[in-house]
């Protein structure tokens, strides 16, 4: 295999190019040095033009050889969570799982068997899903653990084929202006960050909106603090300024968005040709200014009106853009300022700069969508980009793999993560009785820890955890299975579509599985065999990967296992339509959201905002941001990183601390009606008044007491549920803090 560059290796060392499927996102390429079957060193595996590995990636060696790795299957002794385990054989573990699942399935139906898993190699994912499908079980979609609100907007507005449509507002060859919305790529996405810094070096001005002064904010030309969860109001205020000054891109709006489409006043639906002449097409109608009559939008030489009200068959119809103009009118800068806390002058100035400095990129973090109405946040930012033409048509290619080959025995039921709570408690929509957590540390990373442990866990008859470590979730399991690291099995790593790179990579096996650990594929295959699914998953890893690649889709043309062994590959020349929406255009007006009153993006106060009565009792907003030292709960146990960030702390500014008699380093209790966590305070002037932050990823054992997830809630947003997947509003949490004494 080509390593992409010259690599220094010690005598006896072999260097293998592999790839990380870890859930940080970027899908880093890795050059692994192996000596005598031992992984000795990791260095960046390049892609053409780029490639790097961060402190976490370089530390994966310490994950692989961590003394606390699960070494063999174990079954619970004593009560759940008591920490007493008995070593068992794989045979006993798998036999028990099959037997218990059969019993539960017989009593409650197969949909009572649920599985949740996190990002891993495509083969592991598809094999596990395929096995679950064959059992007719229920798959718990994991994106709702914090990453699904904004992507709801990406789906409806762009028709994004990706989970996350970041490319649409970022993939400019040479952005002249970069707006960064609640995003800290300087710590969490080195690929994206390098693109921003390269643009900055070429002269782009960089502006960051964030309630907390992040590393990314520290690098910006301008840091603009914003009240948490109010980004949509900012975007609407900017739209107001842009429209008021006539700085919108009329030609882009007319050509590429639903702006000129007529909307019926009776039902909020787009006017279609068949509405005028029964039996005609579903085509959207515009008001033609030449004939002064409604016409199908694609009629030759049609000259659509972009604004105005028109009477069609006795019904008033406004253009979608007209409706947006009327909405934006409600957000003059002084109102946007009152909501966001950003000065009026700043809103006006940045709006004009954004509309006139092109192309202007918008980088949207998962942070700015972790409030209850995070879908509206992304929807508003997309709409702002759309009316100024700051939308990129590049980068919308993809890989279509042969996932269906693995679902030949059945397709699992799909259920959003936040529905799991009701499903376990009340059987809706599925009577979940058994839960399998595959590399997804659900009990630590998902909201409302106390509810999960005291109400959900006791209702579950059988819990299996397959992981590398005795995670918080594993501590509540009945059976734990040791899975191997990504260096110990072969797989395919897919780019996750957050603008980092667009290469399909082979995750080549570098070392043999340690101890008795098995790959996720092997576990699924062993269970399939026990359940007499004859012939299912009996092929070798390589045969299965070849099957996965042979989808026959144009994007996969010429992509073979042999070629992937040589180097990472981009998709074959194949591009998706710019917008895979029903209209084929960017839909800032979303028909299917009119039942929720959200056809246009408007501002909704966060659920636990400081402007609601609850704030009298719990006056502080809690963020639980991501950091460079961990990826979710991964790496928290790595001593190299622990040396740098030894323990959890509560970031708090001096004024809020002083008001509560709290000194730097004091032990405090952070609490609300749902629960509490005890930890040390770290005075940090980068969090504004009324704000506190815990850099997340820590487990209950790392805290003095409790868990930050004991403070969070699992409230479902119905609009998000209707589109895709309701999100955990992890940054929409009110708390109070009190001193407990000296730490």
């Amino acid at each position, binding site marked *: 295999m080509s390593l992409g560059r*010259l690599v*220094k290796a010690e005598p006896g060392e072999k260097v293998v190019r592999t790839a990380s499927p870890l859930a940080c996102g970027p899908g880093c390429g890795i050059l692994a040095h192996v000596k005598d079957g031992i992984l000795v*060193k*990791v*260095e*960046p595996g390049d892609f053409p033009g780029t490639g*790097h*590995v961060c*402190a976490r990636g*370089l*530390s994966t*060696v310490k994950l692989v050889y961590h003394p606390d790795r699960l070494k063999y299957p174990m079954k619970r002794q004593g009560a759940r969570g008591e920490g007493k385990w008995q070593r068992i054989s794989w045979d006993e573990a798998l036999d028990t799982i099959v037997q218990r699942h059969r019993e539960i399935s017989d009593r409650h139906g197969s949909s009572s068997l649920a599985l949740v898993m996190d990002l891993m190699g495509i083969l592991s994912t598809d094999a596990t899903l395929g096995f679950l499908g064959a059992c007719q079980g229920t798959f718990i979609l994991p994106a709702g653990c914090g990453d699904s609100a904004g992507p709801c907007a990406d789906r409806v507005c762009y028709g994004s084929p990706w989970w996350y449509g970041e490319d649409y507002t970022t993939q400019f060859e040479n952005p002249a202006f970069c707006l960064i919305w609640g995003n800290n790529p*300087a*710590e969490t996405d*080195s690929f994206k*960050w*390098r693109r921003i*810094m390269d643009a900055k070096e070429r002269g782009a001005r960089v502006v960051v909106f964030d309630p907390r*002064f992040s*590393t990314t904010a*520290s690098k*910006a*030309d*301008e*840091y*603009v*603090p914003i009240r948490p969860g109010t980004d949509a109001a900012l975007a609407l205020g900017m739209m107001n300024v842009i*429209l*008021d*000054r*006539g*700085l919108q891109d009329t030609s882009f709006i007319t050509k590429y968005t639903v702006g000129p489409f007529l909307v019926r006043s009776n039902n909020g639906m787009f006017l279609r040709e068949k509405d005028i002449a029964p039996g005609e097409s579903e085509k959207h109608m515009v008001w033609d200014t030449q004939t002064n009559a409604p016409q199908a939008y694609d009629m030759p030489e049609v000259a659509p009106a972009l*604004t105005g009200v028109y009477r069609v068959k006795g019904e008033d119809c406004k253009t979608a853009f007209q409706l947006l*103009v*009327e909405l934006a*009118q*409600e957000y003059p800068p002084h109102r946007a300022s009152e909501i966001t806390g950003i000065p009026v002058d700043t809103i*006006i*100035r940045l709006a004009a*700069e954004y*509309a*006139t*400095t092109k192309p202007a990129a918008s980088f949207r973090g998962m942070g700015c969508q972790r409030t209850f109405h995070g879908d509206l946040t992304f929807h508003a930012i997309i709409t702002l980009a759309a009316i100024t033409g700051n939308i990129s048509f590049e980068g919308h290619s993809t890989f279509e793999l042969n996932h269906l080959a693995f679902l030949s025995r059945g397709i699992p039921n799909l259920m959003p993560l936040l529905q799991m709570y009701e499903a376990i408690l009340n059987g809706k929509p599925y009577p979940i009785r058994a839960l399998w957590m595959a590399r997804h540390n659900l009990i630590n990373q998902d909201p409302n820890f106390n509810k999960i442990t005291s109400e959900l866990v006791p209702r579950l008859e059988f819990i299996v955890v397959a992981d590398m470590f005795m995670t918080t979730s594993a501590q509540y399991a009945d059976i734990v299975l040791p899975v191997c690291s990504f260096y110990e099995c072969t797989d395919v790593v897919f780019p996750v579509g957050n603008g980092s790179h667009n290469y399909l990579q082979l995750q080549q096996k570098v070392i043999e599985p340690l101890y008795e650990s098995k790959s996720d594929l092997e576990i699924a295959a062993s269970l399939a065999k026990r359940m007499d699914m004859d012939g299912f998953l009996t092929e070798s890893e390589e045969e299965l990967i070849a099957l996965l690649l042979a989808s026959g889709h144009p994007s996969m043309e010429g992509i073979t296992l042999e070629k992937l062994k040589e180097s990472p590959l981009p998709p074959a020349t194949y591009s998706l339509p710019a917008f895979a929406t029903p209209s084929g255009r960017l839909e800032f007006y979303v028909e299917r959201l009119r039942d929720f009153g959200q056809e246009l993006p408007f501002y909704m106060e966060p659920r636990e905002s400081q402007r609601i009565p609850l704030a009298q009792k719990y006056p502080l907003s809690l963020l639980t941001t991501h950091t*460079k030292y961990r990826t979710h709960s991964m790496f928290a146990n790595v*001593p*190299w*990183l622990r*040396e*740098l*960030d030894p323990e959890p702390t509560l970031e708090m*500014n001096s004024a809020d601390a002083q008001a509560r008699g709290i000194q*730097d380093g004091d032990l405090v209790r952070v609490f609300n009606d749902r629960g509490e966590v005890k930890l040390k305070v*770290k*005075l*940090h*002037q*980068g*969090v*504004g*008044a009324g704000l506190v932050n815990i850099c997340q990823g820590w487990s209950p054992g790392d805290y003095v007491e409790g868990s930050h997830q004991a403070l969070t809630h699992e409230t479902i947003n119905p609009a998000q549920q209707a589109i895709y997947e309701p999100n955990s509003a992890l940054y929409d949490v009110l708390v109070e803090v009190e001193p407990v004494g000296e730490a």
Partner: protein
Amino acid sequence: MAKRYGLVVDLERCTGCHTCTIACKVENKMEVGSGVRVETVGGTHRDSPAGKYPDLSIYYLPIACMHCDQPPCRDACHAEAIYQRPDGIVLIDEEKCDGCQECLPACPYQALVYDPDRNVVRKCNLCFERLDQGFEPFCALCCGDQAIFWGDLADPESGVSQLIAQRSAYILKPEKETGPAIYYCPPVERRQAKGTLGLDSKEGIKFPKAS
């Protein structure tokens, strides 16, 4: 002409990600400590900013052995374990080092670390074995921010020399007169928006009257 190897660190691009710190551990097999430490130039804690919200600042300062022209650590070493190569790289002979740690306070940059497992003092060796084989220092290779550059400071045409000139790179603690071989490019000034950017435009949409 004699070579003089050194590093240039771009403080504009450095985000304090500690990849260099970990890279040094990996390359030099250091379980505890590292040849590169990254200091926060900001508030009292690592990763906390200076100033009053929202007028804040934070920078990161990666510090390694400066491979000084006149290394005070060498002069402080009674065992004569510390020596300098003709290309400027300062090295510790671990056979001779007896772990007395007298060199530690002599370094104005606190760039030396004691390794209790091996009872020797360790520090950045500029990955001299890599350099000798034509490879860049491992921290420079791994730096995702592209903030660490290495090269020959004695050659005015080298990339590092040009970067030092273009960016007015500086050395730390010049008053110590040790002749350090790590230069720092200062962060660039924050840019203001240019002109009125259409703020004077009056071509706006006529907003309908609020109902």
